[in-house]
Structure formats: C-alpha cells, structure tokens
C-alpha cells in the first residue's frame, strides 16, 4: 500500500468514527453552517462535536501548518481529505472568512506572532471575522476607498464607512482596508485588523431582496487601532488586499465543493420532470456543472504547485458564479409554484426562493463578472488597453 493509500484508509476510518450522522448531510443554507465565533449558537450537539473533533486534529484547516492550528497536510493528502469528505457527504466542520480569506493572507504577509495568534483562533473557530472592503462610493472601483486612518503615533484613528460587510453584526473582528495616505492612491492603503467591539464601531444590517440581511453597513467613528495590528507594511495594504481577493474569488467560485451538490437534474426529477425542454436545459446544465467540477479540481491541484495562472481565480469566480445563478434559475423552474412559497414550514421558510435571490449577488460580490472579464482580458489574455 502506498503512503497515500494508507493515509486514505486512515482518514476514511477517522471520518467514519468521528463525523456525526447529522453532519453527513449538506447544510440547508448559510444559516445552517457552523461559522464559529464568540457568540455563535450551535444548531445542535453534533455541530459542536464535529467542530471540536476536527479542530483537535487540525482538520478545520487541513493544509495549514500544525503550529498555526492546521494538520500540515501536503497537497496530495489534502486532496484525499476532500475526496473522503465528499465520499461521506460530510459538511465542512467550520466555514469562515478567517479560513477562506484572512488566513491565506496572513500565511503570506503576517508576522510570526500574528500567524500563531490569529491563525490558531481561526482554526479553532474562536473568532469570527468579517471583511471591510467595499464602501458606498467604492464598489468595483475599490481602490478609490475613503475610510481614513489618522496616524496618532502608536495607533491609528479610523473614521469612515464600509458597506456590504458580510455578517458584520455577527463578527468578532474585522480585516479592513483603510487609507493611511491620501496623496497616494494605490500605495496609500493599509490592511488593518481590529476588534468589532472597539469603541466607535457600529453596524446596521441591510435588508436584501431575499428577505435576509447577510450584509451590513459598518460605521467607524474614531476607532483606535494599535499599530501592531497591521498586516504587511504601512501603505502596502493593496498588495495584501489583492492577494486576499484571489482567495475570496476562489471561495465564491465554489471550486472544490461537494460533487453531489453540483448537478441538479436527478434532484429536479423528484418533483416530476414532464417538460422535455426543461429536461434538456437541466441536462445542458449538468454537463456544465460536471465540467466545472473538473475545472475546480484541476485549479486546486495546479494552484498548490504553482502551475495555475495567478489571475486564474478570476476566471473561476466568473464561471462558478454564473453557473450558480443558472443552477438556481433552473431549480426555481423545476420547483414550480412550490418554490415560490416564502414563509411556509414545508418550504423551509422560502429556502428555494431566498437562495435563488441570494445567488444574484454571487456575480457582484468580490468583484463583478464584468470586472472578472476585464481582469482576464488584461492579465491572462494580455489584450491591448485592457
């Protein structure tokens, strides 16, 4: 038996032994996932147990080094981990912006103290992070952001407003883009970390078309941020921000997701599938979904060994989000009038309709599809004037 096969056997046995039955079903929606944090309310004992067992082994972040709370798996081992998780239908023990976004940025740009401190907190699900990027006047044109940090010697005093801050009202800490030099557009931005409980921070949820409020407006009114809570150098936050955006886009693309959730034709058939044209659309969709799942696998394989184009996450984000929007359009069509129900028990309080509406943000958040196409044109295809 090769080392990898032995590892697979070990993982398979561990998962069989430790993954609670309730955690072998996909989460119903974002609210059903484990996000961790100071104030997180576990849905049930199984969710708590699953997080604790994984965190103890470093499996919430299997590829991170062990000193930072990971399991130190190699790319090949991590692939085995994902495959075995998919095989069992096991849901991730912990979902968080700390894992998907801040963690990778800290691994690359953080000091050793920052890594040990913040990454371990993330891996154990102790601190829930939110992202302070967009502002009312700075959406696609993010670099025009105005939130300002005034230098006060050993700390900055931050004033300004962020918008579309996902779960800001539930987060413990924020990683935030703050202008520390008004004269320098690209090199005047710093990447700061601070506690959402700091005096002067307030949040206001935004009611969306889905009827939910996953996004907030976030206000900073003379918030003091100690100087050591910067990632990277002063004025070089844009480098960190861009690197992190790559990981955010990878996350939103859905690459590496559970195969069983990708296709929808068989699922749609449960409601009866009498319309041949709808069946045809579902088949065309499933072709694209299975193809994209191969793309996700290839992308993850390549990025781990530096074979992927550095701008490839933009392509993944574009293709993955457009696909997801199509998925939910078809699920609505397949669901018929039952999928329209907004508040009934039987519809899980409008699960289908709310998810459908939620997906419309996929091609906006983290960079619009149009911006992704611009980036592909410029950085991958090297088209003129792009």
């Amino acid at each position, binding site marked *: 038996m090769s080392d990898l096969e032995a590892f697979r056997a070990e993982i398979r046995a561990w998962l069989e032994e430790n993954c609670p039955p309730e955690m072998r079903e996909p989460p119903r929606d974002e609210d059903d996932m484990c996000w961790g944090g100071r104030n997180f309310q576990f849905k049930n004992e199984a969710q708590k147990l699953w997080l604790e067992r994984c965190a103890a082994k470093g499996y919430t972040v299997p590829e991170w080094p062990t000193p930072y709370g990971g399991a130190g798996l190699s*790319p090949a081992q991590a692939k085995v981990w994902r495959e075995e998780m998919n095989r069992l239908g096991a849901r991730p023990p912990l979902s968080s912006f700390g894992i998907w976004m801040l963690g990778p940025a800290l691994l690359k740009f953080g000091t050793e103290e920052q890594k040990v401190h913040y990454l371990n907190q993330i891996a154990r699900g102790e601190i829930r992070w939110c992202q302070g990027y967009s502002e009312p006047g700075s959406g696609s044109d993010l670099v025009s952001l105005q939130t300002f940090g005034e230098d006060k010697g050993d700390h900055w005093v931050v004033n300004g407003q962020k918008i579309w801050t996902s779960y800001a009202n539930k987060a413990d800490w924020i990683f935030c883009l703050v202008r520390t030099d008004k004269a320098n557009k690209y090199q005047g931005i710093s990447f700061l970390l601070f506690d959402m409980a700091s005096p002067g921070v307030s949040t206001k949820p935004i009611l969306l078309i889905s009827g939910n409020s996953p996004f907030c407006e976030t206000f900073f009114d003379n918030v003091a941020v100690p100087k050591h809570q910067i990632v990277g150098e002063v004025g070089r936050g844009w480098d960190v921000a861009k690197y992190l955006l790559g990981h955010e886009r990878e996350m939103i693309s859905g690459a590496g997701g559970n195969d069983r959730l990708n296709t929808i034709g*068989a699922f749609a058939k449960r409601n009866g599938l009498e319309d041949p044209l709808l069946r045809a659309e579902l088949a065309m969709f499933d*072709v694209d979904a299975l193809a994209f799942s*191969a793309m996700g*696998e290839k992308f993850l394989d390549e990025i781990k*060994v530096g*074979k992927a184009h550095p701008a490839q996450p933009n392509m993944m984000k574009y293709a993955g989000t457009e696909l997801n929007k199509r998925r939910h359009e078809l699920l609505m069509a397949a669901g018929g009038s039952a999928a329209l129900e907004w508040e009934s028990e039987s519809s899980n309080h409008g699960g289908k309709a709310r998810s459908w509406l939620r997906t419309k943000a996929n091609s906006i958040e983290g960079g619009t599809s149009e911006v992704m196409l611009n980036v592909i044109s410029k950085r991958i295809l090297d088209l003129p*004037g792009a």
Partner: protein
Amino acid sequence: MPLYHTEDQAMLADTARQFMADEGNIAKQLRHYRDMNCKDGFGHALWKQFAELGFTGILVAEADGGLGMGHVEAGIVLEEVGRNLTPSPFLTSSVMAATALGAASDELRGRYLPGLLAGDSVFAVAIDEGPKHRPERIATKAERAGNDFKLSGAKTFVVQGGSADMLVVAARTAGSDEDDAGITLFAVPRDAAGLSVENARLVDSSQAAHVKLDGVQLDADAVIGEVDGGREVLNRVVRAGRVGAAAESVGVAQGSFDMTTTYLKQRKQFGKLIGEFQALQHRAAHLYSELEIARATVIKAQQLLDAGSDKADLMVSVAKAKAGKAAGLAVKEGVQMHGGIGMTDEYDIGLYMKRDRALAEFMGDLYYHADRVAKLSGY
C-alpha cells in the same frame, strides 16, 4: 492523481507540439492534400513519421510492441493534431481500432498490429448506420453459415474508410436492432468480397465513407473478442473515440482561439487595435473560460478512463459535450472577430470552423451526450 500532466507526459506534449507545428501544419498537410484533391485526405509520409515517434502504438500494449500508454497520452497527440488541423488516421487507427484490437486474438493482433506500429497500415471503424451517432442501435447483420459469418448491411460516416486496409465492423449476431447483447465485432479486410466503400469528402476535406456489406463472408478468425459479446468492446471503442475526439476539439478550440487573440492585437479600426474594445475583450475572456473548463474536463475523463473508474463513462460524455461546446464557440467567435477576412478561403480561421463541425458530429454531438449525461444521472 492531480489533474495536470506528469513530467513524462509534459515531455511527450513538447515533442508532439514541435513535431505537429513543424511537419503537421496547415500549409504542409491540410491545404496540400486538400488542394491536390487527394483521395486519402492525408499524407502517408506523415503517418510514417507518426510511427517513427512511436505515436501509432501509444495505446498498443508493450507485449505487442507498442508503448502501452493511456488516453492521456493519446489525447496529448490529438490536441496537437487539433491545433494544427493535421489530417491523419491517428484517431481511427491508433485510438479506436487499436482499442478494438486490444481485445482481439493473438492471431488478429499479429496480423494487424505490426502494420499499424510501422505506420504502413490504416484502419477504420464502422459503427454508425445513419446520419447521427447511435451505437445503441446496430442493424447490420452477421449470419452464421457453418464456421463462417456472412455480413450484410450499410454503415455511414466511416472516417478514413476509403483508405483503410482493415475495417472494424460492429454487426448483430443475435437479437433485435436495439438490444445491448448480440453484438459482434469483426476485422474486415479491405479486399473482402462483397465489401464496397464509397468515399465522400466532407466539409473539412476529411474523407469518410459509406460502406456497404453485401454478404461479406468471413471466417471465425475475423471475430474480435467474443461472438455476441461485442458490446463491451464496442463501448470501449466508442469511449476511446469520444474522449479522443474531445481532446482533438480542445486543440481545435485552442488553435482557433490563439489565432483570434493574435488578430485582436494586430487589427486596427477607428484608429485603435480592435482588442481594445471591451465588447470583444469580454467575449474573448468568456471564451478563455469555456476553453479552460473544457480542457479540465477532458483530462479528467482521460484519467478516469485510464484508471478504469466506473465514473469514466459519464465523464467521457461530459467531456465530448463540453469540448464540443467550447470549440463550437471558439470557431464561431473566431470567424466573427476576424471580420471579412474570416470568410476567405485564403485565411486559416475558416478551416477551424469546418473541422470543428465534423468533429462535433463524430462519436456523438452535444445533444447526444447531454442526453446521455441525463440518462446516466437517472432522468
């Protein structure tokens, strides 16, 4: 296994890329043989060179003198074939017929494989019986007559049929047209009495034949595999053909795409390079995305097939469908973005469009394979 080429495969890709660009390019091969109205539509000298490089035996077992490699390696050659629109009997002979012969007796392998390995022989595969690929339905009959078989029926879209020294023919020895069981594969020599082959030149200048079998008498030695048990081998042959055609499609798409993005960086209108226009940039970027996904799908299917996975069949259909979709988009955008020059015979982009049309149809089009994905997924 990671979804990228191993070091050995990357070396093979370098060799194939260089060779096809130097020797298999459009001017030297496709245009040359097209313009001389060659009955084969390809060059035998190039086929000999394929043999010298070992390509002809990529899927032939080492015990039979081949390289004993897999569909990933065959696909590497096919992608370069696609990129250069290189006419050759590689897909029909070295991928499909070689897969069939892999299941054949020592005697048949001994009779046919040395010629293939040497680049002296050309084989074709006769499966379809109508204008659409429907291998589930085989009506061509093979009736027993003592120890012999008598084949009667008609086959369509037999690529390289007119040039082939031997045709692998799928015929029915039992059951009715749509039955899974009762299929037998035969190795039919070109000079068999009662075999007529009518060459037809296709839109892409490739040659495919209408084949008639009018009481073609064969002895039991001509049977590939088991009598009545040919479906399993036939499935292997069509899977090899499908994933191979998908790899070639990715090459066609890439060739067309490269030519188009180059043009976007050269052509000026309104005092600007047309590649500066966002209307074109976004379409090019979308096409890039589709092409990348198709490429990933094809290598996934190749690896699953080589690993003998039970998921291979589904993924092969996904690959054929997705590669066809991406290549179809690549050639249509290619001609449109080239503008008027894209409509001229002198310029190569139109040749990509023609080749894509033929490849899309070969071994099942997007609609056939999407339907198959649905059926395999239970709806």
